[in-house]
């Protein structure tokens, strides 16, 4: 009896272990091994080359641009998500007719597959059929024969992918913040009201500071996700025009898979691992602190 009990626990979590090892662990180890080798698609030879791949990508202007873009893409979208999610969470907390419906609407971008959402955006931002351009033309804000090329001009393209990614990430952050907000005892904002604090003082000195641990979780989680995600950029711009929206994950994909240089792709993709590990450590620490307070 006791013997069987001892095996029950490990047996129950074994499927999860197998799953993680096979789909995350093995590829991760292989990526690491490839990054210090000269592996190519279609070749069976393996030669250890040390950190040569990393030295080489650091000298590659395309990689440096992707690295820079990754930071711009991640930081800008996360700042926008943070502001948007705070506003949404604060307004969705209030009781108003149709609140449930609005909460549902806000969640839609998260539950809809990002590829479908991005395809929708591809049309919205199309150079010929863009509804945004159409509206701007109708309001005489832009010239009918010189509409903005949303995905065709470097700055506009970056702005577009950032906004679409923000649109995609917003619901998740909103839900997390909403949970944090509802966890604040009702007495606290009431005490602030009696103490003479208005909306802004209550929000910025009481509510947001109290939500800080959970905001940290949302932001760090969103940042890690954004650093490693390529869906939106791949569908909307493929890194273009002229690699101006290339980020680390797309660069790794183009170099390693489409360019057949597995070693370089692997080096690019694990370049940010140390940074992300640190970020992940802070996510876990914040999550723990959010539990305690």
């Amino acid at each position, binding site marked *: 009896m006791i013997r069987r009990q001892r095996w029950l626990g490990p047996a129950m979590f074994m499927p999860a272990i197998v799953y993680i090892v096979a789909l995350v662990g093995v590829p991760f180890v292989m990526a690491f091994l490839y990054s210090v080798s000269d592996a190519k698609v279609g070749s069976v030879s393996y030669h250890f080359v040390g950190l040569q791949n990393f030295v080489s990508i650091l000298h590659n202007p395309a990689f440096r641009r992707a690295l820079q873009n990754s930071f711009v893409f991640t930081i800008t979208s996360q700042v926008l998500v943070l502001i948007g999610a705070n506003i949404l969470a604060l307004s969705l907390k209030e009781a108003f007719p149709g609140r449930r419906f609005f909460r549902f609407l806000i969640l839609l971008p998260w539950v809809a597959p990002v590829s479908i959402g991005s395809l929708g955006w591809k049309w919205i931002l199309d150079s010929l059929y863009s509804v945004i351009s159409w509206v701007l033309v109708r309001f005489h804000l832009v010239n009918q024969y010189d509409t903005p090329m949303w995905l065709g001009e470097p700055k506009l393209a970056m702005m577009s992918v950032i906004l679409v990614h923000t649109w995609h990430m917003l619901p998740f952050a909103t839900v997390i913040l909403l949970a944090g907000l509802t966890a604040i005892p009702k*007495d*606290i904002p009431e005490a602030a*009201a*009696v*103490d*003479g*604090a*208005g909306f802004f*003082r209550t929000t910025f000195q009481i509510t947001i500071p109290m939500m800080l641990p959970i905001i940290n979780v949302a932001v760090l989680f969103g940042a890690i996700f954004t650093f490693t995600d390529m869906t939106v950029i791949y569908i909307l711009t493929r890194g273009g025009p002229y690699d101006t929206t290339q980020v680390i994950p797309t660069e790794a994909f183009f170099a390693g898979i489409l360019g057949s240089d597995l070693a370089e792709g692997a080096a690019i993709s694990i370049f940010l691992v140390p940074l992300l590990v640190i970020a992940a450590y802070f996510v876990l620490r914040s999550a723990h602190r959010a539990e305690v307070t």
Partner: protein
Amino acid sequence: MAVVETRKLNKVFKRGNVGAVVNVDLQSREGEFLVLLGPSGSGKTTLLRMIAGLEEPTSGEILIGGKLVNDLTPRERGIAMVFQSYALYPHLSVFKNIVFPLKAQGMPKEKRLKQAEWAASLLGIQHLFDRKPRELSGGERQRVALARAIVREPSLFLLDEPLSNLDAKLRASAREELEQFQKRIGTTAIYVTHDQVEAMAMGDRVVVMSQGAVRQIGTPADVYDEPADTFVATFLGSPPMNLLPGPDVIVGFRPEHFLPPGVAERLGEHISFGFQISHGEYLGAERVLYGTIAGGAFDGRTAVSRIPSTHAVSLPDGSLQTFAVALGDVKFFDPGTEKRTSRRSIPA
């Protein structure tokens, strides 16, 4: 200093439901300690929250210092409130908690510091300034909440069961301290509690509430000795007043007025009852005897007697005794309305 007045105040939370507060007319006096007392669900906290401006009345008027405040926000009402949970800001130090209302007022920094020092010294908590609320004991938290409430010298103090989170021993001393404190600063205070001992001990006047309505307003002695109806009679006092329903009247008397043979004879005009003792409890300073009335119009009704242990009368369980109540201590209630009546005789 301000006087609070409510006129025909009503609060209905859900249309069609009975009101949480029903037609409350109330007027506090200058510098008074007014206690709202009632069981849970009696509407006392809702009434307090409406005065604070945290809850909007369904109908009726609220006046503070003679000014209609129905449409004013809490911050415009010049009040301070101590919450049951204390509602301290957990991420701010004690000092920052205390100066928060002053900052909201836009008071300059040096004056804030002086004011906070003053409030903290009144409560003896200056040494806690740098601590966070979670590092404080229950009693210390309560003091910080009080300091935060008095720091801007409000015209009215609202307290929502501020002692209920303290352990029994601390509660007694905190009660006395709070009472002294209010007398010293002289600010009108409205205090909500469900604890009758607290209400009796602290209140200049007690407002007894039940089901949203005010049942009686009076000094602790008034509401205890001259209850307006059967609810007040039974809610106050432990054990509660004996109520004996007769054919056309309810007769009530306090257990401590229901006296055993040997004592009863010394009373002037009195009414005697046969009392079948079922069991007694010895509580040190007093004895509480449970039993039923034997004979007469109230035969079989349960009654309780509470006598000081110094009355060394032998009253064994199961014995039949003759107990008596002085006529002046008997209260009469109308069985229909349950209100006091002026009748002065009992049915034979």
